[in-house]
């Protein structure tokens, strides 16, 4: 199978890889580049564990072919912490006990990040809607919703 060159920005740094044609972005990130923060859950677009942000929009990396991401700006949960300081969403997920097994967490955080980037003070309904494509089998969702609302409050306090 022919390999194809793929070049994109991952969390602000340039990445270039040769991947087999038809490789999903999820597999390229995890197996080639070594960013294992997006998780392969269902590979069917149902669970949201592989969610990443491509050019500012939430996407499922398991259904996105790597070679369609040429020149794109790809963001994953692994790139959120800065200088050892957790992102407010990561901090809130810890503080609100929104993580149990942790498998859904990177996808949840990506979905929540897109929401907060556009809607800094979301309603509970906004949060539920934003997370509606992400499945969690541990928490019952309530701590996750609370974590996102907590992060939003923390952001607005910092901004004030």
């Amino acid at each position, binding site marked *: 199978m022919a390999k194809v060159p793929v070049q994109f920005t991952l969390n602000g740094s340039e990445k270039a890889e040769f991947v087999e044609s038809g490789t999903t972005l999820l597999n390229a990130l995890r197996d080639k580049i070594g960013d294992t923060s997006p998780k392969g859950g269902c590979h069917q677009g149902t669970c949201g564990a592989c969610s990443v942000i491509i050019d500012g929009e939430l996407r*499922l990396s398991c259904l*996105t072919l790597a070679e369609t991401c040429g020149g794109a700006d790809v963001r994953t949960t692994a790139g959120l912490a800065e200088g050892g300081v957790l992102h407010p969403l990561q901090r809130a997920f810890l503080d609100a006990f929104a993580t149990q097994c942790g498998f859904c967490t990177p996808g949840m955080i990506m979905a929540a990040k897109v929401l907060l980037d556009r809607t800094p003070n979301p309603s509970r309904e906004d949060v539920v809607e934003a997370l509606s494509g992400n499945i969690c089998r541990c928490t019952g969702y309530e701590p996750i919703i609370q974590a996102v609302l907590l992060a939003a409050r923390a952001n607005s306090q910092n901004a004030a």
Partner: protein
Amino acid sequence: MSLALQTFSSVKDANAALQAAGTRYLGGGTLVVRAANEGDVAVFNLIRVSDPALSQIAVSGGKVRLGASVTMAAIARHPELAALAPAARAVGGPAIRNMATVGGNLFAPAPYGDFAVALLALDATVVTQAGEVPIETFLADRDTSRAILTAVDIALPKAESFRFLKVSRVKPKGVSVLSIAALLELASDGTVTSARIALGCMADRPMRALAAEKALLGCKLTPQEIAPALTAASEGIAPITDPIASAWYRAEVLPVHLGRLLLD
């Protein structure tokens, strides 16, 4: 499982390449990459077209042309397409809506394809490399169609005349038990003068409720007057059975939900 993707700048060139065996068109990936991930070995060559015209939404004089690569998210946020937004938002979660396309939705097998149900009620015209066809013809022939779909044309409905309902068990977003779209014209006294009703999950693809449409003509939207239409809605249906619901259940609840949609 291994896939090979070819990208073309023109639909014409892509259409020629699509004729090869084992070749599928890649839209947003939510159907074909999913199939490949699931182990569908019939999918090995993927074709896509990079022409930006396929992602354009053109609204003029009450007519809308939706490019085949327009996503559900693009429709949901478009200021002039508010009437279509509920149907576009019914598809998947936010990530899926950023990927799933108008063209792909027309190929989505039940229980998917909620937006295509809306397009069927709106009497859309499907534009392909082979020409323009009414959506019903397109849906009937879609399994053997090899012409790349480039756009869908609709007359933009008035918000009050177009109704859409998706029923799912998981809130706020889940796979359809069923979906219903209805385009209703009412006279000034509230009598139905025209009705076009489309159903999702009542066959392997969206279908019209022709008998219910007929039964609604001349009725006012009251529980008594719509009762014959609700009974007629079950005519000709062959609902799917899947892990979401059985065919029996879907058939049982169809009149209930159609009633709610009409009386809302």
